[in-house]
C-alpha cells in the first residue's frame, strides 16, 4: 500500500496537539481539525510498442481490478449521421468474429465480472484472478467487433422511439436547444440527433468509424487494482500488443461565439403549465485551470449546493420552484455556465429576474463568511468521501495524464479550496458570471413569451422547434363573437355528422350500448409488447373496461348501478363511492361534452394554434374537481385533434403530463371515432389502434358485476 508518510506524521502531530489542549466541552459541536491531505496512489506508467499508454494504480487491498480504455480522440462533427460514435460504442459488445452477444454475456457472468463499451472505449471490473479471462474478452470486443445488422436494427428502433418521446419532454428539448445555442451548429458540442441521422447510421459506417478512430496510439488504458507492474505489462502486451497503430484524423474548431447582450429564445410547448428556464453561455474554463478551486467554490455558492443563492431565493424564499441549480463547468475544450429552474407559468418572468439578480449579486457583493466556510466544508467533505470509490481515483489519475496537470493537482485541491477567500470568489464571479451577455431559454407556453421581451437586448424573442430550427409563432385572431360553447358543440356535431345540436342529441340517444376493442403496442428494451383493451357501456349505468397484457388482466374498471371500482395488478383493488361512480360514468359516455355545464366543467376559449399541421381552436377546460386540461379542436373539421392534461403534483413530485393525439377518424354506427390514438405520458409514448367498434351490441347486465 502506498501512502504518504509525511502526511501521516503531520496528521499525528495535529491530533497530539489537539489532545494536549483537550478539555472537551459537550455543549458545542467540536470543530473540525485541519483538512487532511489526500493519499492518492501514484500511477505507474508504461507504453506498448503500438503507442498505447498504460497507467496502473496498484491497489492490493482487495483482489479485484478494473480496466478502463479511453480513446482520446478529438470531438468532431458527425453531420448527416449524428450519434454514429455512440451507436458504434454500444455495438462493440454486440458480437465479435469469435463470439455471439450471448457468448459474451455468459462468459462475463460466470466469473462474476461486469463489462461495458462506449464511443471512446470500454470498462470492466473483475476479481484479479479472472483478469486474464476478462481482458481476453475485452480484447476480442475491441479488436474484432462485427456489428451484426440485427443487433443494430434493434438499437436503432429503440433510439427512434427515444427521439419520438423527446418532443413532449421539456428537459430534453431544453438540453437540445442549450447545446445548439451555446456552442453553435458548427461545433461538435452543438450537434443534436434527428430522425434522419438514424437512417444514415449503418453497419458499414460503424465499421469505418471503429477502424478510423480506435487506434492504440491515442489510447489510455487505466488499470486500478490488484495487479503488479510486470504482470500488468505482460497482460497488456499479450492482449493489446497486436493492436495496430495508425494515423488518426485530428479536428479542431473555433471557440464558439459568446452571446452579445442578452438573447431570449423560446420553444413553445402547447398547453404547458410549467416553464423550464435555462440561462447559459460558453466559457473559457478548461480542466486544470489554475483558478479551478475558487471557481468551483464560487459555482457551489451560486448554484451548486442546496443552500446556494439560486435555490435559497427561488425555492426557499419565493417558493417558485422545487429546485434551482447552476454551475460553471470546466471542459477539455469549451467550458460552460448553465443554470436552470422549472417554475409555474405565472412566475416565469419573475424567476428570470431573480436568477439574473443572483448572477449580479455574486459579482457585486462579497460572500458572507458563513456561506463561504459552510460551502468549503461541504465540498472538502464530499470530495474526501467520493475518493472511496476506486473509479474517482482512476478518473483523477487519468485527468492528470490527459490534461497535463501537475502531478499533485488533486492532492493539493483540498488545501486550495481551504485557502479560497471572498475576494477570490468575487474575481471568479466577475470572470465567469455574465448576466449582461447570456442566452435565456424558456420551454413553455407561448402565452408567457411576451413578458420575456423586456430581458432581450434587441427586444425580440426568437422561437424555435425542438430540433432548434427557427419557427414563426404568430397568433391568428379569433373570429368575432365565437364562444367556447360554440367550439365544443361544433365538435359534438362534427362527431355525429349533424348540423344542429338537437340532431346530435337525438343521434346519441339512440346509442344504448357500445363495445370498443383496441390494441396498443409499446416498444421497450428492444421488445414489442402488445396490450388489448376492451371498453363496454350499457345504458343507463353500466360500464366496464379491461386491459390485458401477456394474458393477464393488468387493469380493469367496472361500474354498475349498485357498485363499482378499479383493480390494478400492482396497486390492487379500489372501490368507488356512489359519487365517483356517477362522475366516472359521465366521463365514459360518448355524449358527455353535451352536458359539460351539468358536469360542472368551465370552458375558456384561448385562441388559435397549429397542431399537426392544422389550425385549431384552443379550449381550456376545468373539471369540477379542479383538474385542468386543454383541447385542440380543428377549425376545418371541428374534430378534437389533441388533448393535453397535467395533474396537480404533491410537493416534491414532478407533475404527470400527458398529451393525447387523435388521428384517422372513422365512422361507426353514425359516430366518428379516432382510429388511432397516440399518447405521451411524461415522455413515454404509446400508440393505440381501434380494432372494432360496435354500436348497440347486446350486452348483459351480468357482465358488469363487481365484488366489493
Amino acid at each position: 500500500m502506498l501512502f504518504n508518510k509525511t502526511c501521516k506524521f503531520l496528521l499525528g502531530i495535529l491530533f497530539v496537539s489537539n489532545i494536549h489542549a483537550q478539555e472537551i466541552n459537550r455543549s458545542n459541536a467540536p470543530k473540525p481539525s485541519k483538512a487532511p491531505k489526500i493519499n492518492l496512489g501514484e500511477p505507474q506508467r508504461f507504453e506498448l510498442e503500438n503507442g498505447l499508454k498504460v497507467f496502473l494504480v496498484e491497489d492490493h487491498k482487495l483482489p479485484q481490478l478494473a480496466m478502463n480504455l479511453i480513446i482520446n480522440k478529438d470531438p468532431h462533427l458527425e453531420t448527416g449521421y449524428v450519434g454514429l460514435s455512440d451507436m458504434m460504442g454500444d455495438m462493440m459488445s454486440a458480437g465479435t468474429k469469435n463470439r455471439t452477444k450471448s457468448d459474451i454475456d455468459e462468459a462475463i457472468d460466470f466469473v462474476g465480472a461486469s463489462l461495458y463499451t462506449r464511443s471512446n472505449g470500454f470498462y470492466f471490473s473483475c476479481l484479479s484472478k479472472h483478469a486474464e479471462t476478462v481482458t481476453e474478452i475485452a480484447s476480442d470486443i475491441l479488436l474484432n467487433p462485427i456489428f451484426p445488422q440485427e443487433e443494430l436494427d434493434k438499437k436503432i428502433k429503440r433510439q427512434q422511439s427515444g427521439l419520438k418521446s423527446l418532443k413532449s419532454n421539456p428537459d430534453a428539448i431544453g438540453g437540445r436547444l442549450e447545446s445548439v445555442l451555446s456552442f453553435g451548429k458548427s461545433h461538435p458540442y452543438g450537434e443534436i440527433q434527428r430522425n434522419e441521422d438514424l437512417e444514415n447510421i449503418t453497419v458499414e459506417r460503424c465499421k469505418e468509424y471503429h477502424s478510423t478512430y480506435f487506434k492504440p496510439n491515442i489510447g489510455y488504458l487505466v488499470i486500478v487494482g490488484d495487479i503488479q507492474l510486470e504482470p500488468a505489462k505482460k497482460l497488456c502486451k499479450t492482449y493489446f500488443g497486436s493492436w495496430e497503430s495508425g494515423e488518426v484524423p485530428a479536428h479542431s474548431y473555433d471557440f464558439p461565439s459568446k452571446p452579445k447582450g442578452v438573447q431570449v429564445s423560446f420553444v413553445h410547448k402547447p398547453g404547458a403549465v410549467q416553464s423550464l428556464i435555462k440561462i447559459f453561455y460558453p466559457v473559457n474554463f478548461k480542466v486544470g485551470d489554475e483558478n479551478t478551486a475558487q471557481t468551483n467554490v464560487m459555482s457551489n455558492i451560486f448554484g451548486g449546493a442546496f443552500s446556494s443563492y439560486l435555490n435559497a431565493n427561488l425555492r426557499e424564499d419565493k417558493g417558485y420552484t422545487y429546485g434551482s441549480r447552476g454551475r460553471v463547468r470546466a471542459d477539455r475544450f469549451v467550458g460552460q455556465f448553465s443554470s436552470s429552474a422549472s417554475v409555474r407559468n405565472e412566475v416565469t418572468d419573475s424567476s428570470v429576474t431573480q436568477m439574473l439578480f443572483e448572477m449580479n449579486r455574486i459579482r457585486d457583493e462579497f460572500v458572507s463568511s458563513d456561506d463561504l466556510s459552510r460551502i468549503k466544508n461541504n465540498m472538502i467533505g464530499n470530495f474526501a468521501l467520493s475518493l472511496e470509490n476506486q473509479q474517482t481515483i482512476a478518473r483523477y489519475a487519468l485527468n492528470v495524464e490527459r490534461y497535463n496537470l501537475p502531478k499533485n493537482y488533486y492532492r493539493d485541491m483540498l488545501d486550495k479550496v481551504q485557502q479560497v477567500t471572498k475576494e477570490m470568489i468575487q474575481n471568479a464571479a466577475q470572470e465567469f458570471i455574465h448576466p449582461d451577455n447570456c442566452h435565456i431559454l424558456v420551454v413553455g407556453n407561448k402565452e408567457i413569451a411576451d413578458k420575456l421581451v423586456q430581458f432581450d437586448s434587441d427586444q425580440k424573442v426568437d422561437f424555435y422547434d425542438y430540433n432548434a430550427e427557427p419557427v414563426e409563432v404568430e397568433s391568428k385572431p379569433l373570429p368575432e363573437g365565437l364562444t367556447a360553447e360554440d367550439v365544443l358543440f361544433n365538435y359534438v356535431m362534427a362527431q355525429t355528422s349533424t348540423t344542429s345540436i338537437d340532431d346530435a342529441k337525438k343521434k346519441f340517444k339512440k346509442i344504448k350500448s357500445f363495445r370498443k376493442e383496441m390494441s396498443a403496442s409499446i416498444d421497450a428494451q428492444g421488445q414489442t409488447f402488445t396490450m388489448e383493451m376492451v371498453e363496454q357501456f350499457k345504458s343507463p349505468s353500466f360500464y366496464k373496461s379491461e386491459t390485458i397484457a401477456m394474458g393477464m388482466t393488468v387493469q380493469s374498471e367496472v361500474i354498475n348501478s349498485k357498485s363499482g371500482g378499479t383493480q390494478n395488478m400492482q396497486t390492487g383493488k379500489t372501490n368507488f363511492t356512489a359519487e365517483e361512480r356517477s362522475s366516472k360514468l359521465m366521463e365514459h359516455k360518448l355524449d358527455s361534452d353535451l352536458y359539460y355545464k351539468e358536469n360542472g366543467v368551465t370552458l375558456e376559449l384561448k385562441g388559435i394554434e397549429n397542431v399537426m399541421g392544422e389550425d385549431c381552436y384552443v379550449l381550456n377546460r376545468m373539471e369540477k374537481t379542479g383538474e385542468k386540461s386543454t383541447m385542440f379542436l380543428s377549425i376545418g373539421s371541428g374534430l378534437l385533434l389533441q388533448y393535453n392534461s397535467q395533474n396537480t403534483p404533491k410537493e416534491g413530485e414532478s407533475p404527470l403530463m400527458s398529451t393525447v393525439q387523435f388521428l384517422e377518424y372513422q365512422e361507426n354506427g353514425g359516430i366518428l371515432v379516432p382510429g388511432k390514438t397516440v399518447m405521451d405520458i411524461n415522455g413515454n409514448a404509446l400508440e393505440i389502434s381501434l380494432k372494432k367498434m360496435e354500436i348497440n351490441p347486446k350486452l348483459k347486465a351480468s357482465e358488469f358485476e363487481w365484488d366489493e
Partner: protein
Amino acid sequence: MSKFNSVIAAMLLFSSLNAQSPQIEFEEYELDNGLKVLLHENHTTPIVAVSVMYHVGAKNEQPDRTGFAHFFEHLLFEGSENIKRGEFFKFIENAGGKNNANTTNDRTFYYEVLPSNQLELGLWLESERLLHAKIDTIGVETQNEVVKEEKRLRVDNQPYGSFLAEVNKRAYKEHPYRWTTIGEMEHLDAATLDEFISFYHKFYVPENAILSIAGDIDVLATKKLIKAYFGPIPRGKEKIAQINIVEPPLAAEIRDTILDDVQLPGVMMAYRIPAQGTPDFYAIELMSMVLSDGESSRFNKKCVEETQSAMYVGAFPFSTEDPGLSFVFGIANAEVDPSRLESEVNEEFEKIQNELISEKEFSKVRNMLENNFLGNFRSMIGIAENLANYEMYFGDANLINTELDRYMKVTREDIQRVAKKYFNTDNRVVLYYLPKENG
C-alpha cells in the same frame, strides 16, 4: 471421480489463497465502563466511519411491546441534551458527511461517514446519543407517526408484505423471533414515555455496545478522544439477561392459506435451520445460491424459463444469532395453481438431496461467493460494520479476515447433506397467498 473432485477443489482453494485475501488489521479493547472498541486504521482515503452497534434487537422486546428496538432507530436521531431537535442531521451535512441506521432481530446499528478531520464530531454525536439522548413526548409522538407511515409503505401496502409476520408466528411458538422488527403499532401506541425511557436506560448502555471506527485515524490519538467522550458514560444499572429460549422442533409441517390483496398467488416456505456461523449454515448458503442466484440458477431455469409457472422464485437463508429460518419466496404466474409451483420447488429440493451438484455449478457459486465477500471490505463503513458484527455475534472480530475459509470448506457433499437434513416437509411452514376474492 471423487479423486478428481478433490483435485479441483484443491486447485480452487489454492487460487483463492493465491489471490491475496484481504487482511484487515484492527485494534480491540474495552473501556472501564464496558464499551468495546474496534479501530481499523486505513489512510487510503481521508475519511472515517464512526459507528455504534447495540446488542438490542427485536428479540429483546417484551411480547406486548414489540417494535421498540426499531422505534429507537428513529427516536435516537431526535437530539440530546446538547443537540437541538433536527440538528443531528445538520451537523453531518455541514461536515460533508452521511449517516444512517438499521435494526435487525438481534442488534441495532448507527453510523456516520465523515471526512477524517471530523472524527471528533462523529464521536461527539455518538457519545451524546449514548449518554443522554432526548426522549420526550414530542419526539415519541413524531416518530410514532413516521414509523406508522413506514409500516404502511413497506408492509401493509405491499403485496405479500405481511409474509414475514405470517411465517414467523407459525414457525415459532416460544422464541421472540415469532414477531417482526417493525412490531405491532398497538404496542407502540400503548407504551408510555416511561417505558421508552427505561428501555433506553436498560439497553443503550456502554457495556451493551461496540464502538467501531474505520478509516484515516491515528490510533493513539483516537483512543484518547474516545476516552474523553465515552469514558465518563456510566454503566447501566440493570443486568441485561441473555435470551435463552430454545424453540422445540416443528415436528410436523404447518400449512396455511392467507387471503391478501394480491393479484398473483404466492408460495412462501420457511425451513427451520441452525444459527449463523455454524458449518451447516454455510453449506445452506451455498445450496441456496445454487438454487436461486443468477439467471442460470436452478429455480430460475426451471420455474421461470422452462415451465413458466413462476414469475419469480428465490431461496434465502436468514442469518440470525439463534437458530432461524431459510425462506423460499415464489410468485406464481397468472392461472398457475400454486400447488404446481410448490411441487416444482419440491422437485428441485429433492434433486439437490439426491444428486451432487455439478463441478461447474460448484465453482460458479464459489466465484460468486468470493466476489460477494469482497463487497464487505469495499468501504470503511462496511469494514466497521463487519468488525462489529463479528465481535458481537462470535466474540471474534478477526472473522472479517477468515470467514471466507469457512465457506470454502463446504464441499459438494456438505451441500447434499444439509439439503437432506433440513429441507424436509416436517421441518417447514408452507403458506399460499391467494387473491382475496377467490377465497
